[in-house]
C-alpha cells in the first residue's frame, strides 16, 4: 500500500523530532566531554560547544593524579561490590518464600506486609541517622552498605517474576526430593536471569550514584564515596580539598575543565554498562510488573 503524502510528512517530522529529542539527552554530556578535553583558556572564554577546542588531556592527568579522587573512587568500588553482593543475596533469598502461595507458606502474607510497610512509612531522616550512629557505623564502609541492604522494590520485582515461572518446575523438583534451598539455587535463580540482571543493574547504579548517605554518615572526607566527594567540590565548592599547588594548577587548567573531567570520569562506568544491559532490564521490568 502506498503511503499518503500526509503520512510521509508525519513520519519525516516524527523522525526529526525524535532525533532532536535524543540529541537533547546526549548533548549536555557531549558538551561536558568537549570542555574536559579543551584548554583552560578556551573553556573559560566559552568557546567550546560540542567539540574540544585546543585539545589537551591535561584535565584528565590532573584527575588521575589526585589522591583524593582516587581514594573516593576506591570507596565507591568497595561499596558497589559489597553492597551489590549483599543486596542480591538477600533479594534472591527473600523473594523465594514470599512468592509462595498461602497454603504453601502460611505466614507469607504477614511477612510480605512487614516488607511493604517499610516503603509506605518511614521514621524520617533524623531517627534514621541516630539509629545508624547508635549501631556504631559512622565513618565505616558498612554504613554505606548495610542500611540499604534490603531493597524492597527489587524483592517485589523478583517475587513477581518467580510467580510467573511454571508451577510444574517446582513440583517436579520437589518430587525428585529437592528441598527449598536446592529448588531456589538450581531452578529458580538460573531461570530468573533477566530479572536478576535488572535488579542487579539497579543496585549497582543505586550504589554508584548514592551521595547523601556518604555526606551525613561519613565525618571524615577521606571516607567519602566518589559522588559525595564530587558533591562537596563541585556543588558545595568545599575548599578543604584545595591545596596551594592545586591553585597554581587551576590557572593552567581552569576550574571548568577540571570539573568537567571529574564529572565525566564518574559518569563513564554507567555509560558503558547500561546499554549492554538494556535488553535485560526492559524485559525484567515488564515481566516483573505482570501479575497473574
Amino acid at each position: 500500500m502506498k503511503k499518503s503524502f500526509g503520512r510521509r510528512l508525519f513520519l519525516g517530522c516524527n523522525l526529526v523530532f525524535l532525533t532532536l529529542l535524543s540529541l537533547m539527552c546526549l548533548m549536555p554530556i557531549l558538551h561536558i566531554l568537549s570542555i574536559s578535553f579543551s584548554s583552560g583558556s578556551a573553556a573559560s572564554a566559552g568557546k567550546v560547544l560540542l567539540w574540544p577546542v585546543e585539545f589537551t588531556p591535561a584535565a584528565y592527568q590532573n584527575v588521575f593524579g589526585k589522591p583524593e579522587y582516587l581514594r573516593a573512587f576506591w570507596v565507591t568500588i568497595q561499596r558497589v561490590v559489597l553492597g551489590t553482593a549483599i543486596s542480591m543475596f538477600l533479594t534472591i533469598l527473600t523473594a523465594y518464600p514470599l512468592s509462595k502461595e498461602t497454603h504453601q507458606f502460611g505466614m507469607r502474607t504477614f511477612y510480605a506486609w512487614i516488607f511493604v510497610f517499610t516503603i509506605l512509612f518511614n521514621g524520617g531522616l533524623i531517627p534514621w541517622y541516630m539509629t545508624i550512629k547508635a549501631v556504631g557505623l559512622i565513618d565505616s564502609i558498612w554504613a554505606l552498605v548495610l542500611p540499604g541492604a534490603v531493597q524492597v522494590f527489587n524483592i517485589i520485582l523478583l517475587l513477581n517474576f518467580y510467580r510467573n515461572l511454571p508451577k510444574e518446575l517446582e513440583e517436579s523438583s520437589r518430587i525428585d526430593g529437592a528441598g527449598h534451598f536446592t529448588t531456589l539455587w538450581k531452578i529458580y535463580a538460573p531461570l530468573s536471569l533477566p530479572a536478576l540482571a535488572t535488579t542487579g543493574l539497579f543496585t549497582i547504579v543505586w550504589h554508584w550514584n548514592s551521595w547523601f548517605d556518604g555526606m551525613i554518615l561519613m565525618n571524615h572526607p577521606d571516607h567519602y564515596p566518589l559522588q559525595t566527594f564530587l558533591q562537596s567540590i563541585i556543588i558545595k565548592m568545599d575548599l578543604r580539598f584545595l591545596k596551594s599547588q592545586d591553585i597554581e594548577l587551576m590557572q593552567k587548567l581552569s576550574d571548568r575543565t577540571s570539573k568537567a573531567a571529574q564529572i565525566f570520569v564518574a559518569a563513564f562506568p554507567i555509560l558503558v554498562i547500561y546499554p549492554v544491559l538494556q535488553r535485560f532490564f526492559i524485559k525484567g521490568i515488564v515481566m516483573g510488573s505482570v501479575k497473574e
Partner: protein
Amino acid sequence: MNQLARRWKREWPLHFMVVPALIFLVLFSYIPMAGVLMAFQKYIPTKGLFGSPMVGLKHFKYLLDYPDIGRIVFNTLYIATMKIIAGLAVPITIAILLNELRQEWMKRAFQTMVYLPHFLSWVLLSGIIIDVLSPSTGIINQILSLFGAKPIFFLGDNKWFPYVMVITDVWKEFGFGTIIYLAALTNINPSLYEAAEIDGAGRWKQTLNVTLPGMMPIIVLMLTLNIGNVLNAGFDQIFNLYSPQVYESGDVIDTFVYRMGIEQAQYGFATAVGLLKSVVSFILISVSYVMAYRFANYRIF
C-alpha cells in the same frame, strides 16, 4: 499442636530464608520508626531516646507558628504536582511517537539515548546543569545572547527556579518512563487497528480512538500510584541546585528538614516535621494503593 509441628517441619526453610532480611529491616527501618518519639522530646544526644525529657506537642506548635512554613508546603506541592503531570504527559506522548517507528533498531537506538540521563546521579547532572545554565559562561545564555537577550540566572531567580526543577526532572526521567507505556502499546490488539481502518479512520483518529483508550488503564494506574508523591518534590535534585537566594521558591519540606536537623541540630523539631510528612504520605500512598486495587485490580505482590 501436632498439626503445628508438622507445618513447622514443612515450612521451616521458608521462615529461615526470610530471617536475614528481616533483621536488617528491624534494625534500619523499624527501630527508626520507633525513633519518631523524638518528635515529642527535647532530644539530648547524650541522654538518648529514653533519657530525654518529653515536651508534648511543643515542636508541632512551633511549626504552626514558623513564619516560612506555608511557603515551604506550597513550594513542595507546586513543584511535585507539576512534576507528576509533566512526568505522565511527556513519556506517554514520546511512547506513542516512538511506536510509530516501524524499524525495531531505530526504536531501540532512540530509547538507548533517551534513557541515559536516568542512570546518572543528581550530583553529576547538577554539575552539568550548573555549567550549562551559568549566566556568564553557560551555553544556554550564550545562545540567548545571540538573540540579544540579557543573561538569565536560571538557578538564582525565583521566577525561574521551580520551572527549571520541573524541566530538568522531566529531562532526566521521561526516557525511562516510556518503557512501561511502550510495553502497554505493544499489547494493544492489532485487529482493533484493522477494524478502525476499515471504518475509514486515519492514523490520527486511530491514535485517539484505539491507542489512547488502550493505554487508559496503565495511565490511570500510574497517576494513582503517583498521588503518594505530592510531598516528594525531589530532595536530591533541589538540594544540589538551590541556594539561599531561591529558598523563597525552592525550599521544600525535605530540604527544610535537612537544614533544621543536620545543619542546625534541632533534632526534635526536624523529627516532628519529618513525622508529619511521613504520616500524610502514608495516608496518601495507602489510599492510592487501595484505589489502584479497586479500579485497576493492581496488586503490589
